[in-house]
């Protein structure tokens, strides 16, 4: 049986022409020029950060980097359509979303420089820490959404605020094969959770193509759980925005979970440890280069008169600074102290942790003494 093709929602063609869409265009009509430029700003910012992080990794300054190159529109469009009070549970590649939520490049890179596991406070940004165990976070998102329903029941969240609060669970196409993704969707459907699944289908899970994860478009999964899914052109920031705006409004209004399959492309390597030439063709890469989300949007912004050359030059200049600042702050980054790692294994005192921490202190103090003795002797 051939999988049924599902046409993704597209508002902006790869040539940068805007198409009318009865359902989705009205959501775009609400955006003012400033907001439209803002979308561009964050996409450009992510791309700059990505290039800089990749080069920092090549220079041995980062332990690893997972580029989001090519996925800027999918991420920025989606996060711009929800509210800052909505909790987002990312994977490890949602850099554009993180930047949009006010997480600094420095905070973002701590994990990749391996100075700390996490650089930001998830509550401050309503943006959970990155999760490396694929799909695990989709269950935390479901639990968080169950918490929203509990708050409502307890009255600690007024009806208005509840209408204001939904949860976004990010997940890759590869990770949809994980059991946790399935269990999460079962919980979401059963308890009618205010949860939006955001699948970024970037075509590859390291070297394994999406068709190995699913013979049917991933969007079709939603129907099986009993909720709606929409497939969107993830390289089209306007369509990404409109689809997320529509679905999130419906979830807020009590419709239960929804799913977005955002069809996009990972233009770079999976991570800096990967070699995509081993598993994909340059024809494929060229094809997607022609669908570049930033170039497309830039063309339209310019043609529609929402941004002029001055704006683009200004963004360029700003991100040159960003790159320089980022490099400085990465090189100056201080590592977490191992003592601090001991201190956060548990919330409350734990005998074995305390004993081992004390032992290490003594042990290292011994070396310090030896050094001073040697110093005195020499």
């Amino acid at each position, binding site marked *: 049986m051939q999988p049924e093709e599902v046409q993704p929602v597209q508002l902006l063609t790869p040539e940068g022409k805007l198409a009318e869409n009865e359902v989705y265009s009205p959501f775009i009509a609400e955006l003012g020029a400033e907001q439209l430029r803002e979308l561009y700003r964050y996409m450009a910012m992510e791309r700059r950060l990505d290039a800089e992080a990749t080069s920092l990794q090549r220079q041995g300054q980062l332990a690893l980097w997972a580029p989001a190159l090519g996925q800027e529109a999918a991420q920025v469009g989606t996060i711009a359509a929800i509210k800052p009070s909505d909790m987002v549970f990312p994977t490890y590649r949602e850099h554009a979303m993180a930047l949009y939520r006010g997480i600094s490049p420095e905070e973002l890179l701590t994990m990749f420089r391996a100075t700390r596991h996490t650089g930001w406070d998830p509550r401050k940004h309503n943006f959970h820490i990155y999760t490396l165990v694929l799909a695990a976070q989709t269950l935390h*998102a479901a639990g*968080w*959404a169950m*918490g929203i*329903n509990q708050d409502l029941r307890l009255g600690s969240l007024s009806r208005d605020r509840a209408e204001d609060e939904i949860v976004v669970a990010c997940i890759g196409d590869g990770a949809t094969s994980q059991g*946790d993704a399935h269990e*999460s969707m079962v919980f979401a459907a*059963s308890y009618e959770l205010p949860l939006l699944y955001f699948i970024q289908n970037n075509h590859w899970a390291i070297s394994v193509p999406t068709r190995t994860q699913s013979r049917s478009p991933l969007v079709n999964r939603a129907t099986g759980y009993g909720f709606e899914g929409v497939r969107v052109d993830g390289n089209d920031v306007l369509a990404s925005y409109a689809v997320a705006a529509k679905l999130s409004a419906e979830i807020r209004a009590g419709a239960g979970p929804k799913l977005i399959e955002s069809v996009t492309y990972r233009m770079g390597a999976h991570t800096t440890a990967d070699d995509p030439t081993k598993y994909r063709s340059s024809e494929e890469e060229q094809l997607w280069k022609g669908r570049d989300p930033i170039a497309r949007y830039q063309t339209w912004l310019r043609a529609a008169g929402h941004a002029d050359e001055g704006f683009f030059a200004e963004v360029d200049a700003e991100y040159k600074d960003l790159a320089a600042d980022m490099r400085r702050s990465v090189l100056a980054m201080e590592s977490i102290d191992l003592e601090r790692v001991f201190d956060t294994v548990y919330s409350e005192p734990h*005998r074995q*942790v305390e004993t081992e921490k004390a032992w290490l202190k003594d042990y290292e103090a011994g070396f310090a003494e030896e050094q001073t003795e040697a110093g005195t002797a020499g």
Partner: protein
Amino acid sequence: MSAIKEMVMAKAITAALRDELAADEKTLLIGEDIGALGGVFRVTEGLQAEFGTHRVIDSPLAESGIVGTSIGMAMRGYRPVAEIQFDGFVFPAFNQITTQLAKMHNRTDGRVKVPVTIRLPYGGHIGSIEHHSESPEALFAHTAGLRIVAPSNPQDAYWMTRQAIVSDDPVIILEPKRRYWLKGKVDLENPAPDAFRAQVIREGTDATIATYGPLVPVALAAAEAARAEDRSIEVVDIRSISPLDDETIARSAAKTQRLIVAHEAPTFGGIGGEIAARVAERAHHRLLSPVLRVGGFHMPYPPSSQEHRYLPDIDRMLEAVDRSFSYQRSA
């Protein structure tokens, strides 16, 4: 009304859950069949009727889902108490427990607390079929970030459950299912000692048997039987596996000079080996014989028609006591 009640262990746990549900509206129970049925062991019996389907949540049949959503709820300020139906079925949730629940506080540099309690009916001797009698404690104890306790009597079951729920750390409670119907007094006003400490529950002078959970009554019976041979056995109820109160165990061993550690789990790579090493480090010079272990064999839990040969019993404990006495110190 007296605050001291005679209860079986299962009902002591029910009482603890009821009291915590009543004390804090953010405490929730979640698990398979825990609502109308009251759980397969009836530990949650009546609680859904009393607190409602939103407080006592029948979950879909998905262990990773139960633990994973509990983490999400805990992150939002709730105190979920998750029931895993049987020890052998905890493994689908192993990933959520070890890579997420145990590490969240540490990974977030202490910013996110996940006060999830996992109730795990565990251990053998109930004559069941496979995957219903296992003792996976060592697999969890090896993971930093988790606390693991095992009550052996109704008083501890009541208070350890309450202490686990109010703890800000994730706690796994190993409920010795073969002791669910063990009767005992529960003082509902005066807490049992700290859930995370061991306790000397019988004084002795010649050797110590340290154990926890289902084997505590066996150790007490073995100590009683040893009296007939004029051997005075001290019994330590270990109670907490993580943190391990190695100090209390070592103190007892140093006093009696002989230590036997018993558990149902296989001895290879188990908690007994950890205790032996720790006690040797602390009290090597005081011991008259090596620390000996009594436990399950290096095999999957056998068909229960053979469990009487697999599980440590009084005779196996006494054999170990004899063996301990047979060691001679060379001059």
